[in-house]
């Protein structure tokens, strides 16, 4: 059982040390990921979901720093790794697809060049066989005429095509864990679906675990096994997807689920969450969601512990006590 766990994040804290004070972008989060599993991390912008991803990759931007916790990847704490060791893990063990496919590829090098240089890190082979691997990879992500495409520059391809190339590069070294940071927000709806299917296919083939970062519960329902809802740097609720949809325990999750529109909802009555997400350098005392929460009471002046509402289902809300 424990051998199946690829990633274990324990009490991870990533803080930013700015002139105006310390911003706790990630403030003590815990989650686990098994081989082949897909975890959705859901939250509004600024909730810390992207920073969680950068922390796992060891690429927290300046002036941020991981100040506490552990990230155990295959049983080893990544926070104790050197720069060089982290570089070896990136790409081959953990890889990430960023938000915008149009800007993830270097405009002045050909697609083939960018694929081959990635493959060269993994395989000590002559150029010709690396090129063949590149062709196979492109064909694998359903790019037609893959051979000719190698000579293309990114700007000669469509957005959907480029997203596929980025996908091909990210699986080139067969990573155990793939992080997808809102990879579909900049794509057309039809291409979005295609791409999600592609990710699923990749997962089925490689058995990689996926962390899917999104703000879209619709995608979560389609893609994920488990969900973690983040708010102001903390995971406020975590459970299986079905559990979360059937019986959300945290008022924030409830609100998020209610704001997913369906055909029966009128635009006029479309529910939205009152107020703004809190600024991370001026968090309210106690529960950070309390100011926007319809159920807030005196108890919420103290930050809630993590309560287990059902097996594998936790919530940080006093109502779940």
């Amino acid at each position: 059982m424990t051998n199946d766990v690829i990633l274990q994040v324990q009490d991870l804290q990533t803080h930013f040390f700015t002139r105006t004070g310390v911003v706790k972008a990630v403030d003590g989060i815990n989650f686990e990921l098994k081989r082949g599993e897909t975890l959705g991390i859901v939250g509004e912008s600024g909730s810390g979901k992207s920073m969680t991803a950068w922390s796992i990759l060891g690429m927290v931007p300046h002036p941020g720093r991981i100040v506490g916790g552990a990230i155990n990847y295959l049983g080893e704490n990544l926070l104790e790794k050197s720069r060089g060791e982290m570089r070896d893990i990136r790409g081959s063990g953990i890889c990430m697809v960023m938000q915008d496919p149009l800007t993830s590829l270097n405009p002045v090098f050909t697609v083939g060049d960018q694929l081959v240089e990635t493959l060269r890190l993994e395989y000590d082979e002559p150029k010709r066989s690396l090129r063949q691997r590149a062709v196979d990879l492109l064909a694998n992500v359903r790019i037609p005429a893959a051979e000719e495409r190698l000579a293309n520059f990114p700007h000669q391809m469509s957005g959907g095509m480029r997203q596929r190339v980025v996908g091909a590069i990210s699986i080139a070294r067969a990573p155990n864990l793939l992080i997808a940071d809102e990879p579909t927000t900049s794509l057309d709806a039809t291409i979005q679906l295609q791409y999600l299917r592609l990710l699923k296919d990749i997962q089925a083939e490689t058995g990689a675990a996926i962390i899917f970062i999104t703000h879209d519960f619709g995608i979560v329902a389609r893609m994920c096994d488990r969900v973690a809802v983040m708010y102001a740097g903390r995971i406020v609720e975590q459970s299986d997807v079905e559990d979360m949809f059937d019986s959300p325990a945290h008022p924030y999750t409830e609100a998020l689920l209610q704001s997913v529109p369906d055909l029966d909802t009128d635009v006029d009555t479309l529910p939205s969450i009152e107020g703004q997400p809190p600024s991370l350098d001026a968090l309210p005392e106690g529960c950070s969601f309390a100011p926007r929460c319809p159920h807030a009471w005196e108890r919420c002046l103290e930050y809630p512990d993590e309560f287990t509402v059902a097996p594998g289902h936790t919530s940080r809300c006093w109502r779940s006590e």
Partner: protein
Amino acid sequence: MWQFIAIRVMQGIFTLLVISLLVFLATRLTGDPALVLLPPEASSKTDYERVRKQLGLDKSLSEQYFIFLRGAVQGDFGLSIRDRRPTRDLLLERLPATLKLAAAGMALAIIIGVPLGILSAVKRDSVFDKTGKLFAVLGMAAPQFWVAIMLILLFGAILKVLPTYGLEGPENYILPSFVLAWSIMAGIMRLGRSSMLEVLDSDYVRFARIKGLQDGLVVWKHALRNALIPIMTFSGISLAGLLNGAIVVEQVFAVPGLGRLMLDGVLQRNFPVVQAAVMASAFFYILTALVVDILYVYADPRIRH
């Protein structure tokens, strides 16, 4: 591609035409060369008329311009007013010194400026970066002639290690080319730093790191290739500007080049010489711009297709 080059060449020719008209008119505004040539006390009206006729200045302006243009197209800029030598010979005599200095200055600016700019960006906010910033500000704020005089003072008068005039040996190039390079070096450094910082913060550089590429490859391949594009444009414009900067530097370091030829020509109202020197200068300016444009197409595939 060929169409692009053809268009740029046509534009260049048109620009040269406009410049020829401007320099022709501008020289005529500086005064009458006949008055400079004739001794003021001994000259009669007939002498004056004779000299003007000899110089071709008695003809109408449009006729003079036409003669100048017809000659210029064939590379003939007439005789120097002062010593009656063909202006073309004077030009060919002086041009190599200026071109060599400009090339040396540019090479120096790029060889020093680009790596310093990139290191400043990579080691952002370090002591190195801050020192670099100080030098760059100095480079852009200190006027060329002042830098030149200070260097002559230091290396020529105090340390006595470098020659400060003429262009006899390779060591003669050091000071003038450094002065020429000075402000461009500072510009390249600052531009290199800012464009590198921008590129280092781009998604494709981040993605290159995510896929596990070595830091060296990320910086010197992925980032540098993109950061070089604006540096190339700037260097091209600066190189052309170097030919003009030559006027000051050649004067200070007593280098017999195009800049001094131009300056002397203006002072002596030597119309053909000024015209020829300005046209040569403009020609090289346009040629450099064209070469940079062509290189640009090779550097940035987005333009190529």
